[in-house]
């Protein structure tokens, strides 16, 4: 394929797609054809750029100019000005919040500066539906090298030496996992890619699969070569249609090019990949549950051992890694174990992808070296807290993790430091909370998720989490007593200690870590019956400041329960017994007379 001189890359990640980036791409194509530029300019749909709140995002290469918030109607200007006349369309550039400067390249953005892209190396750069572009960016080169010049043991040694640990949450050394699966002899073995990303607020795997599916396919084949498996399975959420479509295209193309299937590159090694669908069960992220789900059963976990590496899918040795882990493999093979292990901290090597979300300015996907501090992530890359509010906490590890607070801002983020701080790496969701968030409510929110997602097999998870949730609910309603906090802690510790699988063993973490870091907030709820963040409706009291009230009666008229009384032009009063705390009066009041106590 001859490369066209100019490529206009339109982000096809979910965020941008939802904001109609498809139409932008279509308009650009129409403009290109209208100007008879089709031999020189090509429109490419890529995976996520990681600038989700700025979409639709368009990047012009090789100039490396990024346009944000592009509408279909902007296509003509981009073609006329930038492509034809070489003039950058200033109004579509990103404006740096601090300096007010218009930035042309993504690399100039403060958010990009601290990042290092290994996993996301091709996301937003290549057309994920075109294998030739992937190959031009080194896809399948590692597989070729492995199959033609290396023994399985040599490959496993490199992966071990690289220090790569599983990115799915547990952090188990990947090379060691491969080695165990290799050692268990069987007539058939399986390589499974866990793409059942289910943490609320996490979309790393989705972005990799949508942006660079070949990175995963290639690594699975390498793993298959190492453990002597000829079959790979990708277990993916059915709720990710775009990722599924791109995977299917990628698998078909790889087969067409002889990079998957029978006798790959004429080396005698055969490896095929199938897609299996999840159906909405968070617990299926747990290996044994995932395997049962692929076998057509309820996704209930079973006791380990036996580990999947001994008896997994269909009772055969099975190696399960998640998307991000696989995406690290090819660069490790190509650049060497030493290169990878030079990145990161002593026991956590390489980079980690995080999905930044919550009360942060730059929402999106980032990839940083292990050991980057929370401060760098939130304030430099993430651009700080929205609306100038105060940072309160960041939750990592989703519903299995805990919250990090101000005192953790300068802790280097890696597997072990997060565990020491009472949280965990998890798959990489990072949700930022500000002063307006009530930590008891946040804990309750996560428990709500766990209760919903518990499989119900073991008693502590099935019933215990429900009881935790009820007690938190009780506390946020102002009905708690101080002794409840001890009971809460005991329940948490026992659920962790006795649950069957990782879901139950980590589900109390959000409660324990908020209880540890925000004890005073819990105490305020059970003693003073106040919610310091003003979030718990039952603990609020709406109050009219008589001096500010002009007696316009607007509040009384809007009150759905007639809780507000008062004569015209006289200060009004809210009856707290009747008030349902809906907030309608406060919204209506033009005189700032209504406050929450």
């Amino acid at each position, binding site marked *: 394929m001859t490369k066209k001189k100019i490529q206009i890359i339109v982000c096809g990640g979910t965020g941008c797609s939802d904001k109609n980036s498809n139409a932008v791409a279509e308009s650009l194509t129409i403009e290109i054809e209208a100007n008879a530029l089709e031999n020189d300019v090509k429109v490419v749909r890529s995976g996520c750029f990681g600038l989700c709140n700025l979409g639709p995002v368009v990047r012009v290469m090789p100039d490396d100019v990024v346009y944000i918030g592009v509408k279909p109607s902007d296509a003509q200007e981009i073609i006329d000005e930038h492509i034809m006349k070489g003039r950058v369309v200033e109004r579509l550039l990103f404006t740096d919040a601090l300096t007010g400067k218009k930035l042309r390249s993504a690399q100039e953005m403060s958010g990009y500066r601290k990042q290092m892209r290994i996993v996301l190396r091709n996301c937003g750069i290549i057309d994920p539906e075109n294998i030739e572009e992937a190959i031009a960016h080194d896809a399948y080169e590692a597989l070729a090298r492995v199959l033609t010049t290396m023994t399985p043991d040599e490959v496993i040694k490199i992966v071990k030496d690289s220090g790569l640990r599983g990115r799915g949450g547990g952090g188990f050394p990947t090379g060691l996992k491969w080695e165990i699966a290799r050692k268990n002899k069987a007539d058939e073995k399986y390589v499974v890619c866990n793409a059942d990303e289910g943490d609320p607020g996490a979309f790393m795997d989705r972005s990799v699969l949508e942006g660079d599916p070949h990175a995963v396919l290639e690594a699975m084949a390498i793993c298959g070569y190492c453990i002597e498996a000829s079959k790979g399975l990708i277990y993916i959420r059915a709720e990710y249609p775009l990722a599924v479509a791109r995977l299917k295209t990628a698998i078909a193309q790889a087969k067409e090019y002889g990079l998957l299937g029978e006798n790959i590159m004429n080396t005698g090694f055969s490896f095929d990949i199938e897609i299996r669908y999840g159906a909405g*069960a968070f617990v299926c992220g747990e290996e044994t549950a995932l395997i049962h789900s692929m076998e057509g059963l309820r996704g209930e976990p079973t006791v380990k051992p036996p580990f999947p590496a001994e008896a997994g899918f269909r009772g055969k040795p099975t190696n399960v890694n998640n998307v991000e882990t696989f995406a690290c493999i090819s660069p490790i093979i190509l650049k060497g174990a030493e290169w990878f292990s030079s990145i990161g901290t002593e026991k956590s090597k390489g980079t980690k992808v995080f999905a930044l979300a919550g009360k942060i300015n730059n929402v999106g996907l980032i990839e940083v070296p292990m050991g980057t501090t929370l401060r760098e992530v939130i304030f430099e890359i993430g651009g700080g807290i929205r609306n100038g509010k105060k940072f309160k906490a960041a939750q990592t590890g989703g519903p299995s993790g805990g919250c990090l607070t101000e005192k953790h801002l300068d802790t280097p983020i890696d597997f072990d430091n997060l565990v020491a701080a009472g949280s965990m790496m998890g798959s990489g969701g990072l949700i930022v*909370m500000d002063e307006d968030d009530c930590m008891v409510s946040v804990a309750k929110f996560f428990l709500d998720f766990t209760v919903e997602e518990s499989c119900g097999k073991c008693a502590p998870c099935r019933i215990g989490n429900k009881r935790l949730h009820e007690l938190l609910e009780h506390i946020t309603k102002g009905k708690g007593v101080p002794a409840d906090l001890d009971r809460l802690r005991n329940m948490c510790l026992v659920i962790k200690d006795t649950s069957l699988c990782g879901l139950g063993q980590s589900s109390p973490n959000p409660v324990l870590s908020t209880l540890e870091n925000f004890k005073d907030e819990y105490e305020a709820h059970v003693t003073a019956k106040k919610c310091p963040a003003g979030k718990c409706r039952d603990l609020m009291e709406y109050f009219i400041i008589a001096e500010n009230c002009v007696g316009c009666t607007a509040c009384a008229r809007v009150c759905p329960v007639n809780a507000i009384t008062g004569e015209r032009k006289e200060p009004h009063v809210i009856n707290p017994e009747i008030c349902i705390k809906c907030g309608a009066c406060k919204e209506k009041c033009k005189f700032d007379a209504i406050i929450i106590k």
Partner: protein
Amino acid sequence: MSSIKIELRQEDVSKIKEICASFNNDPQELINVLHKCQEHFGYLPAEVQEVISTELNVPVAKIYGVVTFYSFFTMTPRGKHPISICMGTACYVRGAEKVLEEFKKELGLQVGQTTPDGKFSLSSLRCVGACGLAPVVMIGDKTYGRVAPDDVRNILKEYENY
């Protein structure tokens, strides 16, 4: 779980058999079979599960056990315009709950219900991975981002004539 009694037509039975056969009637492919059947019928009524049970030689109790385990599968027909509100963390902290309440109020529905005219059904979703647009609402394939409770009525208006 309630289910609506339906009678299958011969072509429906043939379709289910065809789907099962495309997976070699392998019981291990049950979840794929259920996905395909739900895609075709829109939901998985008891009768469909009975046919799958016969074809795959899996007790229908076990099939029902699987259907009720996974939140993606449903035994009630969804509305013509299924409304899903993302309850992921990002959406939650940006007020998804209030948006959900507003939909409940406007439509007089609880989560999991369908309007009597079959037009709308309401469900909450796990994170859809569009956190940048939080709070997110999906109606059919269309995504609405940064939805405020006040927007709900206008959003529903779009579907007035459909």
